[in-house]
């Protein structure tokens, strides 16, 4: 084939792919976190219609393949609503929404993990719902959820690989194009796999570090 051999520049290509992957991961995680926590607050306040809507949307997002969600946003939305959607936009929308759905679940369960006893105690002393949320629930929920959140983010990092299928030049897509040129998938996918692994490990140890700091800060040993 025309460019059949690996070249040193391929390393640059892989790193570029990694950059795209990590960049999209960071953006979508941030949006997902904000939106998911917001949904959690909606639920905490039991805002009537909104709460059902949020639950429904997050259920759909959690219970359908990300790949199909991507296809729907990238191929389906433009065809139906006549809006222009670039692959990167589709990736950001889909991944953010998907992350938000899971963040919502973590937010809800970490709020619920805080004993009703404590909430009752605070209520008996006259604290309002907002005060209870801010002073009693939020600090503990944050410490509680950091573990599940780390696990989620490690998972979402891997989910980003699916956007290669709609043509975003992320790490997985670079892998595919290197294959197109070299036809040596064994080496290519091994290298790509290692890069993903290292990135996942980095996210995980960042999470562990954050957890340690949060726990050390509030120093509750027995919990």
């Amino acid at each position, binding site marked *: 084939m025309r460019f059949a051999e690996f070249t040193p520049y391929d390393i640059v290509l892989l790193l570029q792919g990694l950059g795209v992957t990590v960049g999209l991961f960071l953006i979508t995680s941030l949006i997902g976190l904000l939106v998911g926590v917001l949904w959690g607050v909606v639920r905490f306040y039991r805002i009537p219609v909104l709460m059902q809507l949020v639950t429904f949307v997050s259920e759909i997002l959690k219970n359908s*393949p990300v790949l199909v969600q991507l296809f729907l946003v990238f191929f389906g939305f433009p065809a139906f609503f006549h809006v222009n959607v670039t692959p990167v936009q589709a990736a950001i929308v889909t991944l953010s929404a998907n992350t938000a759905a899971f963040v919502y679940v973590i937010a809800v369960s970490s709020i619920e993990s805080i004993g009703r006893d404590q909430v009752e105690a605070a209520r008996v002393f006259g604290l309002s719902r907002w005060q209870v949320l801010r002073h009693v629930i939020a600090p503990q929920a944050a410490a509680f959820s950091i573990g599940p959140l780390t696990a989620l983010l490690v998972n979402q990092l891997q989910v980003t690989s699916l956007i290669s299928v709609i043509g975003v030049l992320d790490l997985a897509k670079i892998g595919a194009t290197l294959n197109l040129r070299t036809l040596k998938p064994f080496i290519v996918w091994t290298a790509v796999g290692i890069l993903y692994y290292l990135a996942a490990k980095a996210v995980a140890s960042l999470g562990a570090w954050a957890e340690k700091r949060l726990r050390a800060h509030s120093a509750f040993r027995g919990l």
Partner: protein
Amino acid sequence: MRLDLTILIPHLGFLAEGALLTLEACALALIGSVILGMLVAIARTSSSKWISRLAFLYVDLFRNIPFIVQLFFFYYGLPEIGIYIDAFTTGVVALSIAGGAYASDAIRAGILAIDNGILEAAEVSGLSKRVTFTRIVLPIALRTSVRPLGSVLINMILTSSILSTITLNELTGQAKIVASDTFRPFEVYVVLLVVYAALTYLVSLGITLLHRRLNRDLQEQVS
């Protein structure tokens, strides 16, 4: 454009074929991953350092590399070193291996959650390690991990959509063909989303029933 689902009617049979393939692959992979997960869970709780380390490595690797990369590696990479597996088998094996990593965690958690007092009771009764494991530890662990194993299955159904990238025409693969035949991606993918959500909903209902049945006797009776 109007949402016109009738255009899909001629393709329903075709889509059902894909759904059947999805279910087939997931059922086989579920069996595979529970068996694998059980073995790995045992290995990880094993007292031999090497065995437990190896088991950990397996879990670590397959949880931190995107499934699509694993799949490409198995399907396109392995033939390069002389290992040929057909697409369906590759799909089932890859799902089993990835699912096994998650299943082992669920089962391990079930084992670790067993009250130490129960194990001590068994020990002082003179029960051997083997009897304690097969008659007490495993039955309790499997009962308590029904739900987490259920989420592994649900995740597997969602992940199976990625098998469309290695030529398998499971539900998503068939849907892609329908989308390119009809040029109506929105309708196709909306329906697909709903079908997956319904499928996983049914599965989780089943899991709940199973969980209830198995744990019926373990529940405190509220009198």
